[in-house]
């Protein structure tokens, strides 16, 4: 192929960049907001262990571009940096592919593996293989009822049903009568367990609403529609921070007085809690899950410790974040670690 033609076509992005730079120089800079306004926050750092470097694989069922998993990974990276651990991170929402990634870690002869058990049956075989190869395996996030059956050493996370139950109790305290539980990914067991938990303890009525999580305008319209259809709904419970923020707009569009509560946090959400547009969030502390999973493998190798004694899971949630404590959390959420 002729090389001159494609080269000339590549000019467009360059021109665009140049235009951007020129515009900046021409005084198009924003006087408010933006990166300049962002405070340079220090990351949590606790020095570095002098133990010999070990390699740990963290294999999750993360789907790409999800803010929650990003926080888990940051926790794992922080622990790895402190413990002189080389961290290999990989993820695939498809259980078969996740199992292959664990096999890949075994083949690399890592010193420890941390996995999520969203679909425990699919990972049974490969966990047994890791044990046969004398690689310690810990679990995190999902699989609180299965980790022992699979022979994992420790588990860090929250029991989704317990978290849902806690939120249901909180709704009783708030005096709610009718709640709608918004599921952004149909068929995800963890999300279903949360809504089931809410239903179990909430003394009012609960209804589930499925929305298409990859299309925000449709999430917004669907929640609006639900609030219009059923005027008696006084609480919207979402299962992820971005959806809570969208639900606020839906309630206003529908002219509904329904209040919003959610599972999981991010930095925009803490702002909404302090403003009072969102009432509270149940936080399972994903950073802690990632951090502890890696740190525990380091402790095991260097000191033979088991967290939870190998018998009980280490619970990282549910922790409530509301107007009373949001200020303490907000600074960490802004860094994307809480």
């Amino acid at each position: 192929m002729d090389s001159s033609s494609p080269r000339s076509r590549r000019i467009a992005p360059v021109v665009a960049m140049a235009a951007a730079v020129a515009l900046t120089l021409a005084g198009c800079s924003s006087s408010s907001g933006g990166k300049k306004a962002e405070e340079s926050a220090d990351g949590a750092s606790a020095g570095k262990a002098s133990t010999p470097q070990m390699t740990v694989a963290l294999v999750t069922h993360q789907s790409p571009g999800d803010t929650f998993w990003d926080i888990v990974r940051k926790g794992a990276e922080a622990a790895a940096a402190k413990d002189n651990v080389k961290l290999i991170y990989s993820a695939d929402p498809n259980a078969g592919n996740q199992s292959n990634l664990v096999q890949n870690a075994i083949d690399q002869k890592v010193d420890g593996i941390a996995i999520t058990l969203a679909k425990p049956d699919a990972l049974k075989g490969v966990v047994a293989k890791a044990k046969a190869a004398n690689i310690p395996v810990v679990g995190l996030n999902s699989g609180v009822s299965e980790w022992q059956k699979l022979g994992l050493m420790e588990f860090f996370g929250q029991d989704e049903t317990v978290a849902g139950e806690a939120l249901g109790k909180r709704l009783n305290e708030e005096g709610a009568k009718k709640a709608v539980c918004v599921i952004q990914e149909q068929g995800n067991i963890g999300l279903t367990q949360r809504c089931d938990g809410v239903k179990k303890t909430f003394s009012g009525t609960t209804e589930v609403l499925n929305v298409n999580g990859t299309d925000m305008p449709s999430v917004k319209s669907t929640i609006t529609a639900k609030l219009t259809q059923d005027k008696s709904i006084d609480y919207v419970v979402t299962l992820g921070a971005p959806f809570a923020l969208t639900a606020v707009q839906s309630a206003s569009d529908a002219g509904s007085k329904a209040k919003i509560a959610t599972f999981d946090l991010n930095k925009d959400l803490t702002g909404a809690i302090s403003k009072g547009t969102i009432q509270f969030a149940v936080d399972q502390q994903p950073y802690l899950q990632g951090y502890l999973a890696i740190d525990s493998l380091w402790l095991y190798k260097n000191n033979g410790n088991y967290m939870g004694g190998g018998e009980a899971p280490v619970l990282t949630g549910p922790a409530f974040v509301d107007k009373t404590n949001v200020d303490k959390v907000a600074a960490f959420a802004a860094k994307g670690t809480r």
Partner: protein
Amino acid sequence: MSMTHHAEPAVTTPPASGPRKTDGRTAERPLALRVLARPEVGVFLGAVAVYVFFLITAPPVREAGSMANILYQSSTIGIMALPVALLMIGGEFDLSSGVAVITSALTASMLAYQLSMNVWVGVVVALAVSLAIGFFNGWMVMKTGLPSFLITLGTFLILQGVNLAVTKLVTTNVATDDISDMDGFDQAKKIFASSFDIGGVEVKITIFYWLAFAALATWVLLRTRYGNWIFAVGGNKESARAVGVPVNFTKISLFMLVGFGAWFIGMHQLFTFNTVQSGEGVGQELIYISAAVIGGCLLTGGAGSAIGPVFGAFMFGMVQQGIVYAGWNPDWFKAFLGVMLLGAVLINLWVSRTATRR
């Protein structure tokens, strides 16, 4: 297999009854049949059927506010379904259009935020990036002669990866930062994401853009030379080239039009929600394509209209929201959506077959 077979009669009719009114075959047939033979009539009847169905079963649908919400949902699909439909009439399609929307929103948001610039700079650069992606798709398809399915499948994966990796690199998070307090935001929000109060009902601006774009696209398709080119390159590329139609220009520009649509919807999302999650948009391309197909655009190209996809998108919005307004068990949501849409396509097919039977 049977689908292509049944669709055969419809292939020849629409262009014939469209721009060239003197075609002998249609002139002899009664007006009612000629109207029915138009590709958008089937979907129009399907849309009316779905609307009436929900009007009866879901009382909230009767309120004006609910209709505004349904139309809003339809417009966010419909604005993208229009260029996607034109591209399909031109014989190609684009699997990257769903994630391209997010690419555009991410570009605008991150550029403005990271360099602390007026958000309009981000908006303009995002337009350039979106048009460049469209150009790349079109240019690759024309240069290599490979099916657009393969080329845009590649772009789809590239953009999906780039969206995530670049966002993470730049912001150290997988979502962009909130830009709602930056200069130019309020102004851009007015243009891309505002709403009007019409008789006490809040109506979103995207609905007006949607209808205006549809009117413009209809005019272009039926009244301009460029419109003829689109039908020609979709019908038979080689004979179109032989009669002097600039095939490369037409096809590449159609891909760029999809890029423009992605930019527009991307800006709407950015200025509605203030931040963008990098993993969104996957799967939306199929919804745009479905809306176009339901709207009477053939997967084989050469036939279709701009008004058909408007009804196609309306049906999506109507069914998706109608189920919720009716208060039905949401577990059945997707299955019901599928059944309704399949029903609509069958009505569409039946109408066009009946109308073209001689």
